[in-house]
Every structure is written in C-alpha cells, then in structure tokens.
C-alpha cells in the first residue's frame, strides 16, 4: 500500500560495550501510515528514543529491514541518511536544542539553508505565528520560556514541509500547562494538516490521546497489558 511511510521488519539495535551487549531495540515490526499519530510509550530505558532515532534515520539499525517511503535504508550510511532526513523528516527534542546564537526566526530558517531551499523567511514567519510566537521572532532562545522554545523547535521541524514529525518526549521538560499547549499544537498539526507524527512520552494522559500507542518493554513491542505503564 502506498500510504505506508515507514515499514520496519524485525529491526534490532545492539550496542556493544566492553563489558556487555545491550539490545536496545529487539525484533520490532512496525508500519506507519500517512496521517497517523503514534505514541511510543514505555518505562525509562525501554528503547523509546533508540527506536525513534532509527525510524527517523538519525541512527542505523543493527539487523532487520527498514523501508522509508518505499526505499530500503537498512544499509545506508550517515552520508546518505542525511538526504532522506532532509525534506522528509522533522525533529523535536526533549531539551529543545535550539541554536543559542540564532534568534527564534533564524532557528526556524536554518533547515532551509541546509536543504538549499530559497530563503523562506515568509514561511518561517508564518510558522512562528502558527505556533503563537509571532511576537517573539527576534528573541534569542535564552530569552524564551521552555514552552516557547519547544514551539520554536516545532516551527523549525515544520519549515521544510516534512512528511513525518518525530518528537522525543516533547513535553518531558515542560510544566503541565506548557506541555499541554505543545501537545495541543502537535495534535492540531495531525488533525488539521494531516501531518504524520511519531512521538515518545511517559505521560499516560497525553499518550491516550494518540491515534495509536506502541508499548515497549526492554526493547520489544509488547501488548498494552504487559506494559508496566498499564495501571
């Protein structure tokens, strides 16, 4: 089916440390379709971030097969993965990770520079307005609150019009009110604009609002009942 954006078959990620071998992701099968809103949940250390990085082509798999937009990326190196990320994927991180020397507007414009897209200042301004920061465009990250920073990060992730937005614990560093605000924006992007979103969260209340929840335990996908989050 051509609305399958990501197809993971039996993928694993292994970290070989001197003392031990850590299997952060084990034999995961997953399909993600256009327009889905997926929450990956599980206890700390269960492999949520690792799985998200892999699906977002930030990291490579150790075994299995990963198809992105119909293309097999299982064996691609970092130099090729960057081309897949660019224009297809947007990222939002728990600790925002804005570039401290650039203003909110410049941060949003930066991916356009990397993507060699013509100056999209108008688009960047439009996105900042959309996340409610039209009045904060000239501010540096340190002059913004956590919630505002995360909203800048969302605008930055959207500026290249990606097909999928990945968000690793986007509300993890925010107070409840700002977190709800950010989550509300993400939900709106999914429902109104049809953007495909994959996020990880600890928060049951937010997770329950996702279209689909994938539970992880020790790197494996488990039914909800087996997840320790099930309470």
């Amino acid at each position, binding site marked *: 089916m051509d609305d399958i954006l990501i197809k993971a078959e039996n993928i694993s990620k292994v970290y070989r440390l001197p003392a031990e071998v850590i299997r952060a992701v084990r034999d995961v099968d997953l399909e993600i379709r256009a327009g889905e809103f997926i929450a990956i949940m599980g206890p700390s250390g269960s492999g949520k971030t690792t799985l998200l990085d892999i699906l977002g082509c930030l990291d490579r798999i150790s075994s299995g097969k990963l198809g992105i937009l119909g293309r097999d990326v299982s064996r691609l190196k*970092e*130099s090729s993965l960057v081309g897949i990320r660019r224009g297809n994927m947007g990222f939002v991180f728990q600790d925002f*990770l804005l570039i401290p020397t650039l203003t909110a507007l410049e941060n949003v*414009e930066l991916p356009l520079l*990397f993507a060699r897209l013509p100056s999209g200042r108008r688009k960047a301004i439009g996105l900042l307005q959309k996340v409610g920061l039209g009045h904060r465009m000239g501010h540096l990250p340190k002059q913004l609150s956590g919630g505002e920073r995360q909203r800048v990060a969302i605008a930055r992730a959207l500026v290249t019009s990606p097909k999928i937005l990945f968000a690793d614990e986007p509300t993890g560093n925010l107070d409840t009110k700002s977190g709800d605000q950010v989550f509300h924006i993400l939900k709106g992007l999914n429902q109104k604009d049809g953007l495909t979103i994959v996020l990880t969260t600890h928060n049951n209340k937010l997770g329950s609002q996702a279209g689909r929840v994938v539970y992880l335990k020790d790197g494996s996908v488990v039914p909800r009942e087996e997840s320790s989050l099930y309470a």
Partner: protein
Amino acid sequence: MTWLSVAFKNLARKKVRSLLTIGGVAIAVAVLVSLLGFDAGYQRALTGNIDKMGYQVLVTAKGCPYEAATLMLQGGGGLRYMDEAIYEKIVKDPRIEKITPQLVATAFDKERQGGQGGVVLYMGIDPSYLALKPWATFKTGGWFSGDEADEAIMGYEVAELEQRLPGDQIFIPNVDKVLKVVGIFNRTGTQDDGVIFLPLKTAQRIFGLPGKLTGIGIKLKDLGTLGDFEEDLYNEPGIQVISMAQVKGTIFNLIASARTMTNAVALIAVVIAVIGVINTILMSVFERTKEIGVMKAIGASRLDIFRIIWMETTLICLIGGIAGDMMAIAGTHAVEFILRRVLPYAPSGQLVFITLRLLGISFIGAVIMGLIAGIYPAFRASSMRPVEAIRLGD
C-alpha cells in the same frame, strides 16, 4: 540568513576568546609584513644608494684596507694611493661611458659631535664628477673658479652642520688650511651629503699627495662588458677593482644573520598564531558538539558542517590579516627606528618598504593560513555522528 552569518554569530558568542585569537593572527601578520617590508626596503635602499654612487666599478690602490661598510661610509675611500698615470691609461678604454678620478682624505675635527671630535671627509674631484652624478645639483653657489682654486663645495648635511653658506670660510684642521666655500649641493640621500669637496689638484697639493688618487669611479657603456673589463684591469699592477655588485653582496652577507633571525621570528609568530587558531576553533567545536549534532539532524550534511567551521576559522584569519596589515603600516616608523639601532650597516632611505602588493600577499597568506588551520577542526566537527552528539550529557 546565510552561511556567513551563522559562522560569524558563533565567533561573536565568545568575544574575548575570538578577539584574542584574532590578535594573535594580527601580530603574526604584522611581524611578517614588517620583516618582508624590511627585506624589500633594505635591498631597495641599498641598491638606490649604490646606484647613486653613479659608478658600477671602483678602481683603488691594491691593499687598500677595504671593507664594504667602511667603503660605503667613506664614499669610496681607502687610505692608500695610486698614481694618476693609471687614470690616464684607463680613461682611453672605449668601453667606458663615464669616469671620474677622486682623492679622499680625512681630518679629525675636535669640535665635531659636541666636542667629542669626529672625522671629516674631504674629496678632491674634477668636473667629470658632475657628469657621473647628474643628481648632484647646487642648492646655492656653483663650481670652483679654477682647477687649483682654494675653494670648497659642501655636501648638504655637512653644510647644515657647520652652518656655512657660499662666501664663508672653512678650516681644515690638520693641514692648517683655510678654504672659501663656493657652493652647496642639494641633498642626494647618499654619503656624499657629508663630504666637503675640493678641486682635485687643490686636494693633491694641500694634503701633500701630488699626482695621487684614492679611487677611480667608472660607468660602463654596456654592463655586459663588466666581466671583460674587470679581467683586463686585474693585470694592472698595484690596483684592485671592486664592482658595486660585489659591494652589495658583501653588505648582504653582513646582514644575513640579522635576516635569518628576523625570518625565524616571523616563522615562529606564524606557527604560534596557527596553533592558537586551531586550538580556539577546536575548543569551540567540542563545546558545540550537541549543536552540531542538531544541525545534522535537521538536515546539515558533513560538508555543511565542514563549511561552517571552516568559515569561522577563515573569518578569524581574515579579520586578523586586515588588523595585522594596519598594525604593520602604523608601526613602520617604530620598526625602522629599531632596525637602524640593530643593523651593522643601514643605507640611507626608507628601510621598511611596505607595498600594496606585500599587504595583498600577507592578507591572502592569512586567509590561506585560516583555510589550513580550519581543516582539522572542521573535519572533527563534520565527523560527529548526530545521535551521539545529541545524546551527549543525557
């Protein structure tokens, strides 16, 4: 937004550190420009001085205690004498364009240098002197009234020093002779400015050296015949032939050690500056590991990261290059002053000669220095893997 503004904002983040690094580059460039300017200026001044002697070959009595610096300082005088007959013989050579005989004598004047005493140079010349040195023009007065007159023409500086005008008298201490000043030369920028000239015959008479010369200055029609000409003169007994090219070489040897040292200083300054730049950029790359990871995550390729870091390095060196060039220009006089104290022999004229070309070359050199210094830090930054960089410190 542009690549340049991203790079520039990174440098602006740690202003003191960036400025210190730029300062290091600027000093290196300034030292380099000053020293290269000195190299060029010295050569130019020396060549200018030697060209202004007017002759390419100097014939002197054999065994004349000749040594380049003294020779230059004394305007071609040793203190041995040869017979005028040699002059009569050489003067007929068809390869010669101009030739002038001279007799140099010295006297010790106790009044000179505020009572310390100093050597006064006298030179007997005939009208051929003016033909060989067309730039020797009169500030006031004119040539001797006769070729045995008890008259003197003074060089510009010595006339200033002794406060003489045409019509005044001067006294030659050790021969107890009084001469009348008839003319004063314009400044030539050569050692001749400090010499008192007399008619050749007068000089021979009052210094008790009838029929004697100390030197013969010769300008050839064709410099290409210099070798042959010298060869022929080697066979003449009692004389030696010194070409000005040789003199120049001797003086260059004299300052060779000074040049080696200054070149070493310049090299060290450049090496230290390069290490400083690499260190600064590398430090800032490591501090920004996470940021670089994020840039990669949001679409920057290895080449993009390389480019940003490389630009930062080059910017530092570019700004440092401009600042260094300005420092060098501003410091020309100070450097000149110091060099004159230090050098064994310094020709008159501008010693440090900074040309636009030199400034251009040093500026491009600084940029190339930046490009080279940037390779390793840029490579380190571009090799970071995005996940590892982002997860750092989690």
